[in-house]
């Protein structure tokens, strides 16, 4: 599905399968939070973690049903480096009748040296319908 805000941010989806999603947010001057340092705004990382976590849930469902984020907790571990793309890997590690659980990590090159980490919960619709 075309998600206007993902497109506006420039998020690229590298792989979405088996309950896992890998995405990339290219560095873009319009996403800068501190003009003195050129560091990306935390909000852009939040949007990347949210979008990737949602994609992981979709990749874990057997049939596409609407989902909605219930909550998302983000820990910022270190600032993103200016002029570098941010990658994100999200895993949907549990799906129940009503709720899906995710964890996600944002990093530059090395997943073991994360910029931010997130855990989320998503409401899973019980009715089949249009995927979000």
């Amino acid at each position, binding site marked *: *599905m*075309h*998600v*206007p*805000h*993902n*497109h*506006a*941010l420039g998020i690229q989806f590298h792989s979405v399968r088996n309950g896992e999603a890998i995405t990339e947010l290219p560095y873009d*001057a*319009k*996403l*800068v*939070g*501190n*003009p*003195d340092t050129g560091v*990306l*705004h*935390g*909000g*852009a990382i*939040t*949007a*990347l*973690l*949210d*979008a990737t976590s*949602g994609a992981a849930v979709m990749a874990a469902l057997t049939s596409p049903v609407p989902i*909605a*984020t*219930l*909550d*998302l*907790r*983000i*820990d*910022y571990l270190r600032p993103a480096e200016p002029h570098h793309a941010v990658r994100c890997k999200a895993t949907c590690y549990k799906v129940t009748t009503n709720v899906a659980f995710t964890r996600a990590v944002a990093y530059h090159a090395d997943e073991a040296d994360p910029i931010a980490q997130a855990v989320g919960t998503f409401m899973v619709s019980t009715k089949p319908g*249009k995927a*979000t």
Partner: protein
Amino acid sequence: MTLTERLATAKAAGNLADVLGAIPYAQFLGFSASLDGDSVITTMRFAPHLIGNPHLPALHGGTLGALLESAAIFQLIWSAETIVLPKTITITVDYLRSGGPHDTHARGVITRRGRRVTNVSMEAWQADRAAPIASAHAIFLVKRDG
């Protein structure tokens, strides 16, 4: 002028617009700020590129997270004695209702101000302030000595 200098000038003039103009991401999301007493109200003007689900349509959850985080940061800067840029340590967002294609407002309330760490709770709403579409709490590193 550095961002900190801009913040000091804007605070002295009682006008946050100049600061928002200097932050590219705030421009991208269409943020503006106004004062309600000592409380900073941050508004995200609706634009089609903020949509996450075009079928409903509904705002992207990431835009609401960014709005809530920014509302807290603006409140922290506004109510601090010295200009220090707060660093977000952690933020938890609860999505309460889907955000419609309308302007969204948010404010942050400082719940505890420690020597190094400050806790803030935030709320975002659209037409009806009594029916928030998202709430959040966050912890910021705000070191007095920079």
